[in-house]
């Protein structure tokens, strides 16, 4: 297996992500969330938001704007599984915001599970808006199974 333990602490190039009205709606539809706050600005304002808020797992959208300067993890997609994720909500994120995302590899662990050797890779992401407020933090775990 590829030894990736030296990658702990690696910081990815930060990137900015504009939160777009249409994208908020599209994502809410994709996760089958019918809360009107994602679809109707009036409903969002009535609920206390400046504009459409983002659904709780919207960070998935931003991650694909990441600058892939070097894909340091070199994952084999046939052997990759999503392990889990956690989100911490510190402030509102609404359409019109511009997020800056700072990501780093927080941990790499080699383990042996019921299906053989595996590598667990934990990445941390911090989301800061255009007013320099940290509005969300997220950690995600990706698992690469060993070669058969």
């Amino acid at each position: 297996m590829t030894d990736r333990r030296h990658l702990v602490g690696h910081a990815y190039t930060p990137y900015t992500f504009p939160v777009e009205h249409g994208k908020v709606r599209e994502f809410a539809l994709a996760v089958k969330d019918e809360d009107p706050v994602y679809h109707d600005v009036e409903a969002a304002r009535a609920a206390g938001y400046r504009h459409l808020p983002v659904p709780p797992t919207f960070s998935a959208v931003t991650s694909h704007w990441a600058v892939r300067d070097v894909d340091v993890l070199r994952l084999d997609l046939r052997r990759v599984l999503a392990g889990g994720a956690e989100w911490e909500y510190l402030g509102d994120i609404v359409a019109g915001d511009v997020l800056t995302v700072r990501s780093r590899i927080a941990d790499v662990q080699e383990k042996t599970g019921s299906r053989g050797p595996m590598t667990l890779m934990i990445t941390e992401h911090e989301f800061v808006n255009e007013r320099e407020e940290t509005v969300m933090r997220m950690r995600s775990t990706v698992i690469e199974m060993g070669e058969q």
Partner: protein
Amino acid sequence: MPDTAPGTVAPERRVGPLTRTDFVRYAGAGGDFNPIHHDETFARSAGYPSVFGHGLLTAGVLAGYAASWLGRRNLRRFTVRYVGQVWPGDTLVLSGEVLRTGTAEDGGTEVEASLEVHTEAAGRERRLVLRGGATAAYPAPALALAEGDRP
């Protein structure tokens, strides 16, 4: 604020059955084009019987359920751990239970809940596919209001 006594369960919600089109819609919305979720040939070459749903699709559906139960503005933390795959034709069965209720530093109430997603499909056993958790915070009732209530 929902009923938050420990042991309180949320009304179960069913979503689905999920189709390959739902997976493709999520791929587009979320930007995750790992072919294992939409390319049948690729999924079989990796040893799977078919494509399967993105973990983040199930997580996103569960987050909406948690937000509508606990109040989306009250959500402070949401966690997921994937334990099984969601196959085309599966219906997601979402459930939640209050684990703990405590007092936050500001005098408000903090609630911790566990969440689960099972899948159901004709001819298959009900399976646990995701374990999750959520923390929600509720502000203390305004003092003036509480005093006004007194006889």
